[in-house]
C-alpha cells in the first residue's frame, strides 16, 4: 500500500496541499481544510482514500448534528416502544445502540480515511465535544460500559466553509490548510485532467471568460472550479464553437450558458446591468 499522497489522475494537488496531507498521515493528526466553496475540499478525502487504497467513511455535518451522533446513539424511543409491545429484544440495551461514523471508522480493519464534512455547519460547541475523541481516538459508551478504541488511527479530514469560527483548543489539535483558488496554470491542468483532449482554443477562450466573470466586482457567489468544470461540460455537450465564445467579451455580453457559472438571480441581474452599462459607454 502506498503511503504518500501525490494527487491522482483526477485530482491535481498543489505542493503545499500534498505536504499537508502527508504530514497529517505521518503524524496521524486531523487535517482541517478551508477554502472557497467548489475548490475540491470534499473530493480531496475521496481521492486520498482512492490513491492509498483505504476505505472512506464520510460524516456530513448538518446544523442539527451533534457530536454524540458520530460516536453512537441510544435509541431510547424504539426501546420504549418495544417494551410496550413486549418484544424480547428490550432486555439487552446493546440492541438499541446505533454506531456512528466515528465508531465505524475506529473499527476498520485497515487504516481508514474519515471525512468530517463542513464542520462549521454544526453548533458552536460541536468541535469542543470531539476534542478527546480526536486526540486519543477512543471514547466510552456509558450505556454498555464499553471503551471503543481505534484499531488504526484514521486519517481524519475536516472541511470548513468558514461560517463559524472554530475554538482554539480544537484548532491546536489539527493541521490547517487553506486551499487557495487555483491560478490560471493550475486551472488549465485541472481542466486538462477532467476533459482530456479538449480543444486548446476552446479551453483558452473558456478560461478567459471564466476569469473575467470571477473578476466582476460584487458577485454574491463567485464561480469556482466545480462551476467551471460543469460549464465546460455543457459547452462540450452543446458543441459550442470557440469562435462563439471569443465574441462574448464578458464585458459586452453575457457568456453562453451562463446558468452554470452564475448561481443566483441577483448575480445574473448585476451582470446584465454591467453589460448594459458597458454597451452604452462603448
Amino acid at each position, binding site marked *: 500500500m502506498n503511503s504518500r499522497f501525490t494527487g491522482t489522475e483526477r485530482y491535481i494537488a498543489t505542493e*503545499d496541499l500534498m505536504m499537508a496531507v502527508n504530514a497529517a498521515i*505521518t*503524524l496521524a493528526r486531523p487535517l482541517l481544510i478551508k477554502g472557497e466553496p467548489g475548490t475540491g475540499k470534499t473530493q480531496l478525502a475521496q481521492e486520498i482514500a482512492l490513491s492509498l487504497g483505504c476505505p472512506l467513511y464520510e460524516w456530513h455535518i448538518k*446544523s*442539527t448534528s451533534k457530536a454524540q451522533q458520530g460516536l453512537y446513539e441510544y435509541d431510547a424511543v424504539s426501546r420504549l416502544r418495544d417494551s410496550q409491545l413486549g418484544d424480547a429484544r428490550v432486555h439487552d440495551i446493546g440492541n438499541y445502540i446505533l454506531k456512528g461514523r466515528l465508531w465505524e471508522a475506529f473499527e476498520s480493519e485497515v487504516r481508514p480515511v474519515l471525512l468530517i464534512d463542513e464542520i462549521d455547519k454544526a453548533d458552536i460547541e460541536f468541535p469542543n465535544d470531539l476534542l478527546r475523541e480526536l486526540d486519543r481516538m477512543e471514547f466510552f459508551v456509558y450505556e454498555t460500559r464499553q471503551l471503543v478504541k481505534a484499531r488504526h488511527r484514521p486519517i481524519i479530514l475536516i472541511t470548513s466553509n468558514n461560517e463559524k469560527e472554530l475554538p482554539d483548543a480544537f484548532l491546536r489539535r489539527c493541521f490547517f490548510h*487553506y486551499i487557495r483558488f487555483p491560478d490560471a496554470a493550475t486551472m488549465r491542468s485541472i481542466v486538462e485532467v477532467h476533459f482530456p483532449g479538449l480543444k486548446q482554443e476552446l479551453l483558452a477562450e473558456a478560461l478567459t471568460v471564466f476569469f473575467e466573470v470571477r473578476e466582476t*466586482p*460584487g458577485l454574491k457567489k463567485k464561480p469556482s472550479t466545480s462551476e467551471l468544470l460543469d460549464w465546460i461540460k455543457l459547452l462540450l455537450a452543446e458543441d459550442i464553437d470557440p469562435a462563439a465564445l471569443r465574441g462574448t467579451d464578458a464585458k459586452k455580453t453575457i457568456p453562453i450558458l451562463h446558468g452554470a457559472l452564475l448561481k443566483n438571480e441577483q448575480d445574473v441581474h448585476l451582470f446584465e446591468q454591467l453589460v448594459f452599462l458597458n454597451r452604452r459607454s462603448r
Partner: protein
Amino acid sequence: MLVNFFFELRQSGVPVTVTEFLTLLEALRERVAWVSAQDFYYLARLCLVKDERHYDRFDRVFAQVFEGAEKLFEQIVAQIPEEWLQSLGARTLSEEEKRKIEALGGWNKLLETLRERLREQKERHQGGNKWIGTGGTSPFGANGYNPEGIRIGQQGSRNRRAVKVWDQREYRNFDDTVELGTRNMKLALRKLRKFAREGAPDLLDLDGTIDATARNAGLLDLKLVAERRNAVKVLLFLDVGGSMDDHIRICEELFSAARSEFKHLVHYYFHNFLYESLWQDNRRRSSAMTSTLQVLRTYTHDYRVIFVGDATMSPYEIIQPGGSVDHWNKEAGAVWMQRVCATFPRLVWLNPEPVERWTYTTSIGIVRELIGERMFPVTLEGLDRAIAELRRPLTRPAPVSTGPEPPPAPGF
C-alpha cells in the same frame, strides 16, 4: 534558530502555542519535510498557523527570520552521499529517463560532474546553463529544463518557483489583525438574538407528547417541534481611515465579535460619512463600489442597522452637497442618512470616541440629531444600551427629522 522563529511569530501576533511548536519539531523528526526550504515553509505554516488571516503575517516573519537560509539548505544538499540520490533516482525515474541518464554517461558520471561543479561554484546561482541553482538548463538544480537534470531538493511543478512563495504574500487581504478578547462583546451582542422556530421538526415537544399520548390511551405518540434559531439580521456600516485610525483595534474586535454572533451579517465601509456609494473591500475600494441606493433596496426593513464611526468631521461634510473630503457628492450626507433612517427603523450609531468629548464636537451633535439621539459609546455598557434600542418593537414612531423632508430617491 527555530525557538527564535517561534518567539518572532508570537511577537508579530500569530497565536502560536508550545504544543503546535512541538508538533512542528515532531514532524521534522519524522522527516515530513526534508532538505528543502520550500517544504519546510509549507510544513511550518501547516503546523503553526490555524487561520488563513494569519498567513500574511506568517509569511512576513518567515521571510525575515529565514532570509538567506535557502543557501543553508543548498549546502546540506551538496553533502548528500551519492547512494541516497541513486536510490531516490531509482524510485522516481521512469525507464525512459534512466536511459537518458545513461546517454549522459550514467549516474556516476553525472554525480562526478556535480561534485566537480560544487567545488567550482561558490555562490547561489540562478539561470545560466552550467552552475547548480534554479531556473537554468544545467543538469543540476531545481526547476530546470534539462530532461537529464538532477532536481536537487525540489520536486513537482517547475517554472513557478522563481519567486519564493513566502515572498509573494498572497494572503494579504485576510489579515484583519483581530486581537483576542472579543468574548465580552460577543456576550453583549448575544442579547440581540431573536429566536424563531425554523427548519425541520426534530426536537421532542414534551408537553405535546404527553398530551397526545394521554389522548392516545397511553400508547406513545411523539410530537416534535423545530429547533429555535437566531433569526436576527444585521447590517453593519463601518467608518474607515482618517480619524478612525485611533480606534482600529476596538472596531475590529467589534466586527469579529459580530461576525461570529450573527448568521445574517452584512457589512459596508464608508469614509467619514455616508454618501451615495459604499464598499465592502477596502483594497478594491475604487473599483468595487456599491451604490447606497442598491443597499437600501436590497435589504428589508427588518434588518437592524449598526453604524460604527467617530462622527468627527467638519459639519460641512454632513450638511452640504459637495462637502465630502474625497469626492464631489451631489446630495448632502444628511439626506442619505435620512433615507437610511426611513428604510431601517431600527438603527444605532456606535461611537468609539469617549462620551465626555461628544459635546465639544459639532458634527457629533448633528449626527445625533439626525438619527434621533441613538448614538452610544463603544463600551460594554454602551453596547448593552444600543442592543436594547435595537430590540425595541417596531411600533416606536420614527425619529423626528429636523431637516426638510428627504427628496425621494432618484430613479435608476
